[in-house]
C-alpha cells in the first residue's frame, strides 16, 4: 500500500452528505432517471429512487471518484434490471425473517427470477410497450429508426451512420426522442 494514499471509496456518511447537498437540478435528473428505469416495471419512479438511496446508504460501495448522481443512477439501473442479486452488487440487507422488522420489507423486493409463465407474460407486456413507444414516432421515421435501432442493440456511431445524420442532427434527434418519451411518460410507462 503506497503511503499517503487516499480513501478509494466514500463512507456511508459521506454518501449521505453528498445526497443531502444535491442541487434541484441533480434531484430533477435523478427523478428523470428513475422514471426511465421504472418504465414498464411494477415500481413507481419515486419508490425506485428511494430504494436506490436506501441501498446507497446501507453498505453499497461508492468509489470516491464517482459522482453521486451517477452512483444512484447505477443503483436504480441495478434494481430495475434485476441485477441486484448478482454477488458483486449484493448488499448486506437484513432479511425481514431475521429481524422481524417490517420496515425491511422495502428493501426486500420479490425474487427477480421469473417462472416460464411469468416470463411469457412479461415478454408480451414488453412487446406491447415497444409498439406503443414506436408509435410515438409515427410522424418521424428517422426518430423511429433510432429508437428501434437502440432497442435492437445498435450503438453510437453505428446508429448515427445507419440514419445518415451528421453528429449535430443525430444529437438533436436523440434529444427529441428523450423529450417526447419523457413528456408522454413523465413517471414511466403505466399500463
Amino acid at each position, binding site marked *: 500500500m503506497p503511503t499517503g494514499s487516499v480513501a478509494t471509496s466514500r463512507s456511508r456518511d459521506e454518501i449521505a452528505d453528498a445526497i443531502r447537498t444535491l442541487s434541484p437540478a441533480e434531484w430533477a435528473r435523478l427523478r428523470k432517471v428513475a422514471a426511465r428505469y421504472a418504465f414498464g416495471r411494477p415500481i413507481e419512479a419515486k419508490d425506485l429512487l428511494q430504494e436506490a438511496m436506501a441501498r446507497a446508504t446501507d453498505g453499497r460501495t461508492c468509489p470516491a471518484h464517482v459522482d453521486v448522481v451517477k452512483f444512484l443512477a447505477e443503483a436504480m439501473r441495478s434494481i430495475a434490471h434485476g441485477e441486484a442479486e448478482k454477488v458483486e452488487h449484493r448488499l448486506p440487507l437484513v432479511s425481514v425473517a431475521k429481524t422481524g422488522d417490517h420496515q425491511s420489507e422495502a428493501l426486500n423486493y420479490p425474487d427477480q427470477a421469473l417462472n*416460464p409463465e411469468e416470463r411469457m407474460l412479461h415478454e408480451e407486456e414488453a412487446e406491447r410497450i415497444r409498439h406503443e413507444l414506436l408509435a410515438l414516432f409515427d410522424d418521424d421515421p428517422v426518430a423511429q429508426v433510432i429508437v428501434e435501432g437502440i432497442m435492437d442493440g445498435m450503438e453510437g456511431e453505428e446508429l448515427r451512420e445507419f440514419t445518415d445524420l451528421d453528429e449535430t442532427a443525430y444529437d438533436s434527434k436523440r434529444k427529441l426522442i428523450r423529450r417526447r418519451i419523457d413528456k408522454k411518460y413523465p413517471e414511466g410507462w403505466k399500463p
Partner: protein
Amino acid sequence: MTGRDDKQREALKRLADALVDDILNTSDGDILAEFRETHGDPDRHAVEMRDLFEKTVIAANKRRLAAAKAGVAASRRSRPTIAMPVDITEARRRLRAILQAPNAPRRFTLAARKESELSDADVLGMLDDLRELGLFLPDDEKSGGS
C-alpha cells in the same frame, strides 16, 4: 438469465440505458426546464426528495439497530458456557444441602441417595440440572446455601 425469451424486455432495457445516458449528459439548464414542464417546481421537488431521503436514513438506522439487537440476542443464546475451576468437595456439599432440604425434588433425592457413590461429573451434572430448574441459583453458590 437472458435469452430469446427475454428479447422484448432486453430491448426495453437497452432503450432505458440509452435514455438515461442522455439524461446524465444533458445540461442542468435543460434538465430544469424540462422538469418544470413535466413535473413542476424543481426547488419544491428537491425539498420533497431531501425529506424522503431523511426518512429513508431513519428507516435504515432503525433496521440496523434491530439487526444489531437481534445479533446480540443470538450471540447471548449461542454463547458457550465457560468452564470454571470447580471445587468438587464444595460442590458435593452444596448438592447434599439441596437434597436434604424438605422440599427437594423426589427424582433427585432418589438418584442421589448415596451422593458419595456419584462421580464428580454426576454431581456437577445434577447441580446444572437443579440450576436449570431454578432450584439452585448462581447466587446460592456465593452464599453457599440452598
